[in-house]
């Protein structure tokens, strides 16, 4: 109760409001930042899918793991595609993700890319 009264006190209200506004301004990411984040995520999953294909070919990971990674890569790709900032990501980055997922699918299914079909 005492804490509640302190918060309601006008001496505290102004600094608290200012701090919240400052945090809000700093925290709300701009469109460029969102696009940068989407781009990084796509590149990260492209590299992950390629690394997994390589590891699968070398026998360093089991097939069951590669399937999980493919599903995760496809899920990430589909989530990214639903975001408005995805359109501002460089086309080659977008296509690299799709290519890497396709390569991984073919490594798993020996050439079949059935998992990529809608």
């Amino acid at each position, binding site marked *: 109760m005492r804490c509640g009264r302190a918060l309601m006190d006008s001496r505290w209200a102004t600094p608290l409001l200012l701090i919240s506004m400052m945090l809000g301004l700093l*925290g709300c990411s701009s469109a460029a930042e969102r696009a940068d984040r989407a781009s990084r995520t796509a590149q*990260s999953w492209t590299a992950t899918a390629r690394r997994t294909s390589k590891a699968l070919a070398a026998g360093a990971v089991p097939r069951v793991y590669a399937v999980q990674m493919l599903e995760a890569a496809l899920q990430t790709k589909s989530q990214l595609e639903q975001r408005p900032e995805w359109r501002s990501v460089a086309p080659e980055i977008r296509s690299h993700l799709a290519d890497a997922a396709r390569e991984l699918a073919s490594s798993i299914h020996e050439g079949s890319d059935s998992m990529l079909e809608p």
Partner: protein
Amino acid sequence: MSKLVQIALGVFTSIGGFLEVGAIATTAQAGAAYGFQLIWAVLLGTICVTFLVEMSGRLAAVSRHTIKDALRERFGPRIYMITLVSDVIINLMVLAAEIGGMSLALQLVTGISFRWWAIPVGLLTWLVLWKGSFGLIEKGVSLLGMVALVFLVAAFRLKPSLAEIGQGVLPSLPTDRPLHYWFIAVGILGAAISPYLFYFYSSGAIEDDWDESHIGVNRAVAVIGMGFGGLLATSVLIVAAMLFHPLGIEPDRFEQVALLLSEPLGRLGFYLFAATLFICCLGAALELALATSYSFAQGLGWNWGENVRPRNASRFTLVYTVMIAAVSIMMVSGINPLELTLLSMALTALVLPLVTFPFLILMNDPDYVGDQGNGWISNTAVIAISVLGSLLALVAIPLQLMGG
């Protein structure tokens, strides 16, 4: 048991207990995003937790009090309740992350979603607590945690540059995405300085009937054990820095982290990663559940002890039973374990002063520690690192959450 054997056992259990889901997640993220640049955060966290673990053992050995017991006696119920509430909130989140970590380890090798594993894994954790003795939990599970040494082997096999590691030891400002940098740094501190570790350690010292003759053993265990634990966490960071950073892989799922060991160690490395994740998370989950039960029982005057039969410590047993059931159900809902882990580690850093400051007062009170009180180095180090972690968390958590 000879002192040397006690030290060896204590060191092994500390090494096994240091690395858990939080340490693996935060250091892997750090290495992947910033290369060697955040090694300093692991070092700071290790220094602080070494002091705190040593203090908690010393308090138990000299005063025959656990931290919670002494807190309640020295500061009264109000301060005790504040620390209890913060412990319960944080421990619930971290326990959920550990149950998630074990479930994910099983998902990696079976392909069955971690959501299906949450309940069986929760049951296993509960069963070990119900049936097992303190010795089994402290030594058995923690000794199994030595499998985590595989990260050290992987780091050596990758032949990292000592000069780059040396640069990472010195704190530096981020050149890229400062908010993310500080959020990860805070997470590393939170993962290393987990309060449940020293609550568990002080309760263990009482369960093992320590007295003043154990002060030397305690110091050796804290310094060597935590030091090696920090080395293991640094190894995870180094492996991620060498394998993920150059490729731009920044894990947003735990499944990606499994690739860390398959490159240097092949398929065996993959299975060892899954084993390490499972065993380390099991050890941490057991310690967390017990530490929370200890916190309730020691402050509220209930009968307690992992060596006491459950029927003779029913309220103590009820606390961990309810906790494990609640978080297992929570993980069935499909929360991303990695996101939960990172957030819970950052929140741990946020509440550090709440935990460490009253503890420091106890450690400087001659009524409790006699002439074995803290020196200025340990007081200064713990205050400085706790305040730094908390302030960084205060700024980084809301910004990271709002910025997505």
